[in-house]
């Protein structure tokens, strides 16, 4: 998710070294710098680590929310998640088709709804400027033949919705479901690079 911006993290050892170079002092104490002498002394005495705990939690929360914000402002990551969602939704019905799992109408309907919802959202996640980077496997044709790309999503969405109405039992599932997921290969052929 964060692939495009490799975080430039320094280890504690690096910081200690840096501190030594600047201040010529090996007595590097994080707590002294962050929380002042008193806290450092408390810590040295083995006192409560309350402040540290709060600090850690706050950092963690800030980190998590920034990751979430990044996902929202990062169409590549978001569309990759969405595509993963499609394959996850397809797994159970796929196993049912192969007879590896008993037929479950409710699960099939849930998957079809995921397909239909995804088909509405996905085409908006390929804006100009997201052609490369972040390990995207989207081929340039997504942008050079946008009309067809969007038409294929629309057809997939319409097929999924039609199947929601027509699939009522195992027989209608076996008759109609393969036609819906045939769209996966049909679209990947033109718009996705080979992936290992």
């Amino acid at each position, binding site marked *: 998710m964060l*692939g495009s911006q490799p975080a430039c993290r320094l280890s504690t050892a690096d910081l200690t070294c840096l501190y030594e170079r600047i201040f010529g002092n090996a007595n590097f104490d994080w707590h002294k710098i962050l929380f002042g002498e008193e806290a450092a002394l408390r810590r040295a005495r083995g006192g409560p680590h309350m402040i540290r705990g709060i600090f850690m939690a706050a950092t963690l929360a800030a980190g998590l929310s920034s990751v979430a914000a990044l996902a929202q402002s990062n169409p590549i990551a978001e569309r990759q998640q969405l595509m993963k969602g499609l*394959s*996850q939704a*397809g*797994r159970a019905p*796929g196993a049912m088709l*192969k007879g590896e799992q008993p037929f479950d109408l409710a699960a099939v309907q849930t998957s079809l709804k995921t397909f239909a919802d995804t088909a509405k959202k996905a085409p908006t996640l390929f804006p100009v400027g997201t052609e*490369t*980077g972040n*390990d995207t*496997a989207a*081929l340039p044709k997504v942008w050079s033949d946008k009309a067809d790309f969007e038409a294929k999503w629309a057809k997939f969405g319409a097929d999924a919705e039609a199947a929601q109405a027509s699939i009522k039992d195992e027989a209608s599932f076996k008759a109609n479901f*393969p036609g819906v*997921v045939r769209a*996966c*290969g*049909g679209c*990947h*052929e033109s*718009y*996705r*690079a*080979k*992936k*290992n």
Partner: protein
Amino acid sequence: MRKILLGLFSLACVGLSIIWWVTRPQMLTASQVAVLESGGDVARGEHVFHAGGCASCHMTPGQEDRKKLGGGLALKTEFGTFIAPNISSHPQDGIGAWSAADLANAMQRGVSPQGEHYYPAFPYTTYAHARLEDIADLMAYLRTLPAVGGKAHAHDLAFPFSIRRFVGVWKMLFLDTTPIVADASKSDAWNRGRYLADALGHCAECHSPRNALGGIVSAQRYAGGPDPEGRGWVPNITAKGLGSWSKSDVSELLGSGFTPDFDSVGSSMADVVKNMAALPKADRDAMAEYLKSLPAVDGPPKPAKK
């Protein structure tokens, strides 16, 4: 001085003649092509057509009919752009006027009816291992397909690859024409799968890394590598890459395009699936049997994700 010049000139002549001789296109022998005269079986030929993946390159791009073989698909490689020719039954623009022996020489020796080398973008390196009977059947089937007018464009290659004669050197290095001999210690399914993969389906042509001259690195056959068309990375399909897959997983992928995770294969593999889906399930199972038997081989290192 004149003697020296004359000597150099004759040496150059001899050298060029040797080069000319060793790079000459080599055809099948008369006794080999005799078997082709019996005429082929159309139904069996259709099967060879799908197994060999002919339509993937030769069908007219931009339409869905896999029997319209007008050619024109561009294959962009580091050597230049290859254009798949018209192999429809059109007598002038396609191969309607060809004999079965012409087709056999093209598919198994990489030589045109005019006696010129074909570039190995056409996987005759694989078809060379096929049975001649299969070529005869394929010819019978191709003759039943519609004639499509219009010749495909010529290839657009960089020098020195643009000189066809040099393909003769390439063939000396990389073309192996020995037929596949059944391995009696293996099952019928395994042998069938090997024949389908290594003599017709040409899986290894994409699923292997290639050297600077475009020859398959034989030690890393089937171990994947960069996509020859620069569209991603072709997966390793030895046990190294398919270790966690069952035979039925492999067979399922060939028939439907879906991986065990219900991901769907993309790019040219999606088209390969269309060919494989047209085969009987027993053939896909046989290929899975063979592919799953490939020992684990490390492929070339993948570039870092970007």
